[in-house]
Structure formats: C-alpha cells, structure tokens
C-alpha cells in the first residue's frame, strides 16, 4: 500500500466530489432508473479512496499488485462508476450508457465488464467475504496490496456479513478494511423514533457498532464520512496498523443519505428516484453553480 506523494488538497477533492455527485443524479435521471441516496452518501469516501489512497493505475486495471476495492452495496454502482470515470478508467461520456442495453455499466457492478471493478456485487452482504478471500490470498502470496470493502448500514442486516466479521480476525487480516457507509437510512426500513437523525429509523441505530466490532476483535474507527480530514486520519491509522495489531479494521463512516443536494438529503424517499428537469436544475446549481450553497 503506497501513500501517494501528490495528494490533492481537500478543496480539490471536494470539487471532484461535487462533479461525481452531479454525474450520479444526472445519469440516473437520463437512464430513468437508479439509486441516488446511497451513491451520494458514499461519494466523499469514494473520491478520497480513488484520488488519494488506493495504489492503482487506471491504465492497468488488472495489475496484480493493485489495491482492491469492493463496493459490496452494489446498488450504489453509479456512485462507483462516476468516480471511476473521473479517475480515468473509462470516458466520463460513457456514464450516459448506464443501465442501457449492451453497456459495460450494469445496474450492479460486473467485474467482467467494467474496468476498475474488482468484484461483482448486487446481492447484499457478499462483498466483505470476497474481500477477506482477497486479503487472505495476498497474505499467502506475500503481496503487499490492501483490500477495502464498503458496505451500507442497511446491508449489515445480512447474516453473511457476520460470518466474515467473526472469522476475519482469526486469519490476521490487517490488510483488510471494512468501511460502513452509515447513512442512517435504508430503502424503507423501520418507522422513525425520537432519537433518529432522519425520516425513518436508522438501520442499526439501536446498536453500539464500535463495541460490537471491538468485541469481535476488530480495530474500530468512527469518522464523519464527509470530512476529508477525518477520512484521511482514518486511512492513515489503517496504514500505520499494517503489521502491528494483525487485525482487520472497520471504519464506521457516519454520513447523510442523499448528501449534497438539498432535496435528496436525509430522506428515505430518495433511496432511488429520477429527478425532474426542475430538480436537475436545482441540483446543478447547488453542486456546480457559481452560487451553489455547497460550493
């Protein structure tokens, strides 16, 4: 795992994240189908990974020594595709083919089709296990790369996640990092309660995830997943821990579903959705306009 010397500034990363968010909402609107809230909550961490953390080369997407990233919450594919396109894996214009027939950009990530996709996902709960296999393989082969897996907080309701959480410390996988995009909402979920952040109950709001993961033997970090300083602080601690604790790390990344666009933030109703012309105009102004409130 190489730490890049020419890391973009936080402002440059924030600008890239705004561009990615615009491609997400624009592409889904053009395709008339797709997810919004989950891709938008994950965008900042994805930008941070692909532009300043992962040891990757878009010109050599199959390099055996590259860092791996698995988007286990595969329905957020358009978020990953937007970041991969901006990073140079394929032309940004190709995003317009998302969900179209014969496209390399399927509704859920397909490793056989899309450059830069390290694992096919779409049925929730499977990516961490795939990442554990990659991390174990790296250990066995003496390879130095790091494997990152992102899951959603709704996704960790899947039982298979916990099979891997239970066993990963036994394999000594300090080259495996799980990022939980804890955006506080799932597609519909449970009715809201008094202490919830948004308009439905948080998927795991009743669970102390730090204690749970610590109890399972993981290194546990909690960050604001929209704050680049906190994101890189966590990434730095992951790097520093390699070869030290011998344990996998979980980064609990607290985020806001639908982050970055006023009408999509903090509501389950934009889990998926197709923006109207007016809404697109609003989103564009907020993300890329000269006076956008998020600029």
């Amino acid at each position: 795992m190489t730490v890049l010397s020419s890391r973009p500034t936080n402002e440059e990363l924030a600008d890239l994240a705004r561009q990615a968010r615009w491609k997400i909402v624009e592409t889904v609107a053009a395709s008339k189908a797709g997810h919004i809230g989950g891709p938008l909550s994950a965008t900042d961490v994805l930008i941070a990974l692909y532009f300043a953390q992962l040891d990757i080369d878009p010109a050599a997407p199959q390099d055996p020594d590259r860092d791996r990233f698995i988007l286990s919450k595969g329905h957020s594919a358009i978020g990953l595709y937007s970041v991969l396109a901006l990073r140079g894996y394929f032309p940004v214009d190709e995003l317009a083919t998302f969900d179209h027939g014969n496209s390399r950009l399927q509704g859920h990530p397909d490793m056989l089709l899309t450059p830069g996709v390290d694992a096919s996902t779409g049925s929730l709960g499977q990516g961490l296990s795939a990442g554990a296999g990659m991390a174990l393989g790296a250990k066995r082969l003496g390879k130095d790369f790091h494997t990152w897996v992102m899951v959603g907080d709704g996704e960790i309701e899947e039982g298979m996640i916990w099979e891997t959480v239970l066993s990963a410390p036994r394999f000594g996988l300090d080259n495996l990092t799980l990022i939980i995009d804890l955006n506080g909402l799932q597609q519909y979920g449970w009715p809201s309660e008094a202490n919830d952040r948004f308009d439905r109950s948080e998927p795991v709001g009743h669970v102390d995830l730090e204690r749970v993961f610590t109890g399972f033997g993981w290194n546990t970090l909690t960050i604001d997943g929209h704050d680049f300083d906190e994101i890189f602080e966590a990434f730095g601690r992951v790097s520093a821990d390699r070869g030290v604790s011998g344990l996998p790390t979980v980064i609990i990344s607290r985020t806001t579903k639908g982050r970055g666009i006023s009408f999509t933030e903090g509501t389950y109703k934009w889990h998926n959705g197709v923006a109207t012309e007016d809404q697109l105009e609003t989103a564009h102004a907020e993300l890329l306009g000269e006076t956008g409130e998020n600029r």
Partner: protein
Amino acid sequence: MKAQRLVWGETLADLAANDQRVVVLDGDLATSTRADIVAEAVPGAFIEVGIAEQNMVGMAFGLSTLGYRPWLSTFGVFLTHRAVDQLRMLVSQTKAPVRVAAAYSGLLNGSSGKTHQDIEDLAIMRAMPNMTVIAPADEHEAEAVFRWAAEHDGPVYVRVARDAVSPVFDESYSFAPGVPHLVAEGTDVTLISTGVQTSRTLEAVSLLAQRGISAKLIHLPTLKPLDADRLVELIGDAQTVVTVEEHSRIGGLGGLVSEVLSERGGTRVIRIGLEDRWSESAPNDFLLDKYGLSPERVAAAVVDELARSV
C-alpha cells in the same frame, strides 16, 4: 471398492502437493468429507473457515481472483441450498475457477436423514450459466473428474458420494466433459443413469438379463455441458428410454434427457428418481428399496414399464 470421498481426499492431497494454486476450504466437516486427508498431508493447502458456508464461497471467490483454484468442501446440501446465492453471484456469474466438492450427495448420507439429503442439486446447479455439473459413477471416474476439474478454467460442481459402490469403470477410464458412455449393450430397453446410481443400474441390467431382458445402459456423468448429438446417437431408434437417478424426478437427469429428446421428437422418457416428497433417516439399503433405487426396484420398474408398453 473405494468411496468417492476417500478418493477425493487422496486426489486433492496429491494435487495440492504438486500445485500451489490448489486450496481446500472446509466448513468444519473435514473428517466426514475427508478433507482431513489434505489437512494432514499438505497443511498449507487446507483452510478452515468454520461453519459458515456463505463466507466460504465468498472467500473462495476472493482467492480465485488471485490465481488460486479453490475447492469448497462440505455437505453438498449446504452449498447448493444455503449458499446458492453466493454460488450464483460470485462463482457462476464471474466464471470463477471455484470447484464445488458436494460431499454426501444424493439420498445416501449415513442416516443423517432428509435435512442432509441433497436430491435437488442437479436441478439447481445445471440451471446456472457457466457451471459444469458432474456426477461420477465410481471411484475411477471420480478421480479422473477431480483431476480434470483441477485444470478446468471455470466453475465446476461435482457430486462426491459418501459410500463406495461396485466400480463401473477401471483404472484405464479417461474423462471428457459432456461425453456419454455406453456401459452395456442391449436391445429390449434403453436405460440412462448418472452418478453412483449407474453402478446400481448396472446391477439392475444383470437382473433384467436373468429374466431374459436385454437392456442397454448409457452413463451420463456430465449433466452440463452435454454432447446431445452423441447421446441421441447412443439412444439410437429406441421408442422409450428410462432414466434412473439418485435425485428428484424434477429437473435432474430425467429432466435433462426429456428436454433433449422432446426437441428431437418421438422418444418417450420414463423417469425413475425420487418422488416429490421428503425422505427419512435410515440405512442405505432401506432407503434404496423404499424409494425405488435399489437394483431390484429399478429392474422391477423396467419390467413393469415393458409390460405396459407391449
């Protein structure tokens, strides 16, 4: 006479000793599946993942992306049912070179009963794109299949029977995917069988001969892919074929042969297999007799069918 699971353990130990890509993932059943032979002989090739079959499939997929050729080892029923989504998403979809060693396949599982009997696996697995599906007849074919699968660049599902059967083939057997084998020539009736049921069906052929009935027996080790032209050629001009399998009558060998022949027209297919209901815990001989798969019951069913069709 040697059990396929024992052959599997010994063959995998040999393969693993000579090829670092070979790893065996165990779901805490190594002493049953005989993955313990690998663990003892080549410890570095053995990976315990605990009682977590879904995670086992996911980790095998992850390992396969780095060049490993992982074998999954547990009771088949836990792979084709509990972990079917993982096999579908991470192995079938991605064409990962993961090998599924489905131990204790079929009806006979050491009296573990209906929860552990996997009699729907062939129907499930042959419906998955990219999946090669094989049910070897005996110890010799099994070893050839394991060695072939080790080199195959894609997903393979193999039935591994718990208990030994009388060999159908000898050491000279060589395996090629999709190819049906003519095991016995006959003129009165044509039987098609797969897996270790072929051994019992061959005994049924002997019983039929004692009654003056000349039965042809075709063994079909590969449910997918299939050399359908060769199968039709071996069937010849038979008006009726009888399929025999240690599997549900739904969707397995009988289903496959019916599909092939219905597209070509003319041949009636009688399917001998497990009825669409739950079975029970009992010794092998009891189960084979009660559920119609013993040589005697198969022979009797063929005699009845011939009497009906006269």
